[in-house]
Every structure is written in structure tokens, then in C-alpha cells.
């Protein structure tokens, strides 16, 4: 990596740009170098799978990409602006406007309707919306992920796949620049996982940038690009040549019983 720190072109078109990013945690006397010098560019419209074993630093990198954490050193340029030095509240604003999160365990608010869950990011936005506007926006996004008619269901009344779709709707409601998905299929069976991948691919076709952490090779195969981490650095970064299309998988008979580890 021979990128210079000086004269960085903020407008070279990359949506996400990490430049020699380090993250070091201090626990007492111990220093843990979770990320040690990662440089990465992701263009708008990409669908990246970030892979690696546990302890490889991919979760830390994900937290950095999601503006939940700040790098110890190096720079992070998101959508043309440097966010590596922002304070807690500014980072919260960036997350609200530019990033949509999808978690392994869905992280929906319990005893709260699908609609209210999806409205959540709108409540913290800079635009003050009326209850009717909130409702209209949430319902529209829920319909786009195939949950029309289930707006009033609580998470406990929805299947895992449906809950994850609510979470996707929540991530999409503020029209973010990038979707960050952390093991989005980790709690789902294989057929539902493919359904979620189908949604991801549809969204990606519409131009939405997706970064997805996964440790499953066959899930990574739905992405366009696979980045592998080990010991806090990038091990490989390659375009997926044999890309699997989820829609086609769903049309194959018997897909649901396939073992994803095969």
C-alpha cells in the first residue's frame, strides 16, 4: 500500500475510503491491536462481503465503518467527508443520515409494532415529521421489503425472516448511502437466508451500496466483492466471479433443505 497521506482527493468517487486505519484497544496494561493498517475503497453501488475468522478484526472494522467507533490512527472518508475526528454526537448524525444498520439478532424494539420500529431513525433525524408523515414513510418502506399488511405486528408475531425484513426497512427508511449488515443471516435458516440475500441483491440492483460481514462462504457468494481479513489486516480482496443469484436459487426446487456449509 503506497497511498500518500498528503493531497488526498476527497472526490475521487469512492463512497467509503479507509486510509491506513488502525484501532488499538487498551485493557489495563494490555494493548490489543484489533485493526493494524487497513486501506480500503468502496465505490457507490458495490456489494461487499467482509469475511474473516473471529478475532480477525472484521467486527472492529465494521464498527469503524459504521461510525460507532473512531480509528486510533488513519483516516476514514465517508461520502467525501472525513469522519475520523468527529465527536459522539456528530458521529450519531452521520449514522442517522448515511448509514443503515442490519444486525444478526435483528435488534428490533420488543412490544413495538413493525411500523414504530421502522419509524425509529426518523425520530432522530434533522427533519421534524408529523405522525402521519412518519407512518406514511414507514409503511412505504415496509411494503418495499414485502411486509405490506404487517405494519401493526409486533416482533414476537413475526418469523425470523420477517423480523430481519423489518430491520432492513428500518435501515432503509432514511435513504442511507450505505447499508451495513453484520451477519444478517446468522440467526436464519438457509432458505430464509437466501430470501434476505434476494432482497439485498434487489436493493443493490437499485444502486444501494451494501457492506456485509459474514463468515459463511456461500452467503459471501451473493456479493460482488469479497474482502477477507486476518489478524487485523486485509488478506485478500477480490471480485466474485461465480456470483450466485438469490432469485435463481429460490426457484430451484429443494433449496430450503441445502446445508449452507456444503
Amino acid at each position, binding site marked *: 500500500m503506497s497511498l500518500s497521506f498528503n493531497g488526498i482527493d476527497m472526490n475521487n468517487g469512492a463512497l467509503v475510503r479507509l486510509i491506513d486505519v488502525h484501532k488499538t484497544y487498551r485493557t489495563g496494561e494490555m494493548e490489543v491491536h484489533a485493526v493494524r493498517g487497513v486501506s480500503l475503497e468502496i465505490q457507490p453501488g458495490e456489494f461487499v462481503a467482509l469475511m474473516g475468522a473471529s478475532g480477525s478484526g472484521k467486527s472492529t472494522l465494521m464498527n469503524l465503518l459504521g461510525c460507532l467507533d473512531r480509528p486510533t490512527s488513519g483516516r476514514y472518508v465517508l461520502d467525501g467527508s472525513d469522519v475520523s475526528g468527529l465527536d*459522539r454526537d456528530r458521529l450519531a448524525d452521520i*449514522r*442517522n*443520515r448515511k448509514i443503515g444498520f442490519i444486525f444478526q439478532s435483528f435488534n428490533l424494539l420488543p412490544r413495538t409494532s413493525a411500523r414504530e420500529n421502522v419509524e*425509529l431513525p426518523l425520530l432522530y433525524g434533522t427533519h421534524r415529521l408529523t405522525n402521519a408523515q412518519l407512518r406514511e414513510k414507514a409503511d412505504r418502506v415496509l411494503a418495499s421489503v414485502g411486509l405490506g399488511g404487517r405494519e401493526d405486528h409486533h416482533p414476537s408475531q413475526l418469523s425470523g425472516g420477517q423480523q430481519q425484513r423489518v430491520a432492513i426497512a428500518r435501515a432503509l427508511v432514511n435513504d442511507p448511502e450505505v447499508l451495513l449488515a453484520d451477519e444478517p443471516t446468522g440467526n436464519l435458516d438457509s432458505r430464509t437466508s437466501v430470501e434476505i440475500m434476494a432482497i439485498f441483491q434487489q436493493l443493490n440492483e437499485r444502486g444501494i451500496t451494501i457492506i456485509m460481514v459474514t463468515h459463511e462462504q456461500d452467503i459471501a457468494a451473493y456479493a460482488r466483492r469479497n474482502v477477507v481479513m486476518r489478524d487485523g489486516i486485509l488478506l485478500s480482496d477480490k471480485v466474485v466471479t461465480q456470483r450466485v443469484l438469490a432469485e435463481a436459487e429460490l426457484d430451484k426446487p429443494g433449496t430450503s433443505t441445502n446445508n449452507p456449509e456444503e
Partner: protein
Amino acid sequence: MRVGSTFNVAFRALRRNKLRSVLTALGIIIGVGAVIAMVGIGNGAKAQVEAQIASLGQNVILIFSGSTTSSGIRTGWGGAGTLKIEDADAIRREVPGVVGVSEEVVSTTQVAAGNQNWFTRIYGESADYFDLRQWPLADGVPFTPQDVRSANKVCVIGRTTATQIYGNEDPVGQILRIKNVPFTITGVLTPKGLSTQGVDQDDIVIMPYTSAMKRVVGGTTLRNINVQVGDARQIEAAQQQIISLLRQRHNIRPGRDDDFTVRNQQEIAEAATAASKVMTLLLGAIAGVSLVVGGIGIMNIMLVSVTERTREIGVRMAVGAHGNDILTQFLIEAVTLSSVGGMLGIIVGIGASQFLAWKFQWPTLISISSIAIAFLFSAAVGVFFGFYPARQAARLDPIEALRYE
């Protein structure tokens, strides 16, 4: 700009935990209800005492005969018989601002009419007495200054005495025998009820003091003199002048103690209301403790809630909530619980004091200020006990919070 949504968020969170919200608010409902009811009872008692003190009359100064010591035995006030009729006349003549003077002698005796008899108190007074004590007649007329000068055998009686002797008959114009002397009843007093000491003030016969001294009580001295001044501002001056006038008349050398005692109504009122003030304060304080306990309940639930909702807080932060948004949300939740509890508590408190007033005939008095104070205090309890849990929530690290199991 975000405050409106934060209210929205907080109300949604409270709605999600209806039972818990209701139970938490219950602590405050009981606390505020208790404060309102207890202070209501205390204030009611105080108002009753004050009304009775006011029934002594306005701007009244009481002069009691002193006590005396004879062979080492001390009599009580009035025992010395130091107050003479002439003292009262001198006060009437010489003290400026005096509008009424009533010479008082007191006795208890058996009274009878027809085949009924009754043991009651006999008060000898001047004709000024009814104005001085603001004690109008319900029926008939009072005795006159002429009756006092001539020591006529006339009297007015209280409601209790009237009922005991005459039942439903009209006592006015009837003859009442007191120590076998026939007195003509000229009027019946309006009922006054019980005094602060629990004495039935309507169990009484009032006659000219001259008649009382001559025919019932005997003796030549007064138990006390009631003086009324026209203006409250004159009480102090009048009191001083009465003291110096009486010392002079009784030839008391400087340095020696008075052989009489002067009290004004203000002093009596203060002494009497002091006790009920202490009671109000005590009741209020005990009830206040339950309000504080209710506040601790809120804090407890909010702390549990913050721990239990750690992931929710993480999600909120992930989707863009500032630390302040979280702080405000939890603070609003706490204050909503406490102030809704406060409002319901006011209703409960008013209901409880109405019930006590109805069931036990306790006088209760709910003041607007006690309602306002109870409500503001309950809201303050929410802020005070809600702040710490809210700050705990706001300080959470989003990554840790999202990972929390």
C-alpha cells in the same frame, strides 16, 4: 426541534410497559394522595381552631384576676379577687380606643323550670358582651345596660340549656329558677358548638354581672374583664395602658409583680394554633416520606429499565440518537410517571379527605397551594430520581450496548 419526537419516544416506551408504568406511578399516587389528605386534615383542624379563636371576638383583651398565696396555698387565676367593678369602669373611662368592656363572673349551679332541671354554667356579663364576643341571639333580645344597672332578674340562655330544660318549647319569656331566684329569659343565643377544649359553649346561662354577683355567685370581685378595642393596631397600646392603669389603681410599687394577667386574643390564638400547625407539619412530613419512597421506586424501576433496555439504547444510538436524546427520553419517562402519578394522587388525596370528612366528621381543608406544591414536588421527584438512571443510559457506549445480552 427534537424535543417533540423525544416526548413521542418516551410515551411510546411507557405504553410498552403499561403494568410497570402504572405500578411505578402508584408509589407517587399514594405519596401525593397522602400528602394532600394529611395536609387537608391538618389544615382543617387549624381552620377549626382559628374559627373558635375568632369566636372569642375581635380585638379582645382579657384581664384575669391574679392568683394569691394564703398559708402557702396558691389559688389559680381569679382566686385573688383583685379585679373590682371600679377597675372595669376606669378602663372604660380612661383607656383610649376601648369600644366595649364586659365585667365577668362565673359560677356553676343547678337551674330549673317546671319539673326539669339542669346543671350549667352561669356567666355574669355586661350588655357589651354579645357584641364583644360576636355572639348574636337566635331568638328574643339580649339584656340591656339598664338591666345591668338595676341588677334585673333577666338572662339569656344557650341552645343546649334551652333544649335540656324546655325541649321543643320556646324559652323566651319563660321563668328560669336559679338558686330559687326566678329569672326571666329574654333570648336564646345562636349555637357556637364545642370550644377548642371540647367544652360545649352552648351549655350556658348569661345574665347581668350585677345580678349574678348579687343573687348567684356572691362576692364583690370579678373573675376577669373582657375589653374590646376598635382597631387591631390599638391592641398593644391599650394593653400597656391597662397594665399601668391597674398597677396604679392597685398600688403596686415598681419592681413588684402584677396582681392580674393580661392576654390578648392574638396571643391566645397563636398558642392554640401552634399545636395544630405542628400537627399539620407532622402529618405532611410523614406523608412526604411516602412521596420520597415513591421517588425511590421510580429510580429503582428506571435503573432496572436502563439495564433491561440496554440493547434498545444501543439501537437508538446506532440509528442516530445523541446522548442527550437518550437522557431526555429517560428523564421524560421518569417525570411523566411522577407527574401523572402526582395528578392522580391529587384526585386520590381529595377523595380520601372528602371520605374522612364524611365518615369521621373530621374537618378537612384542601388548599390550592397544597395541591400545587404536591404536584410540583412530585414532578421534582421525577427529575431528581430520574436523572441518575437517565445519565447512566446516555453514557452507554453504543457498541457495548448493542452487544449486551
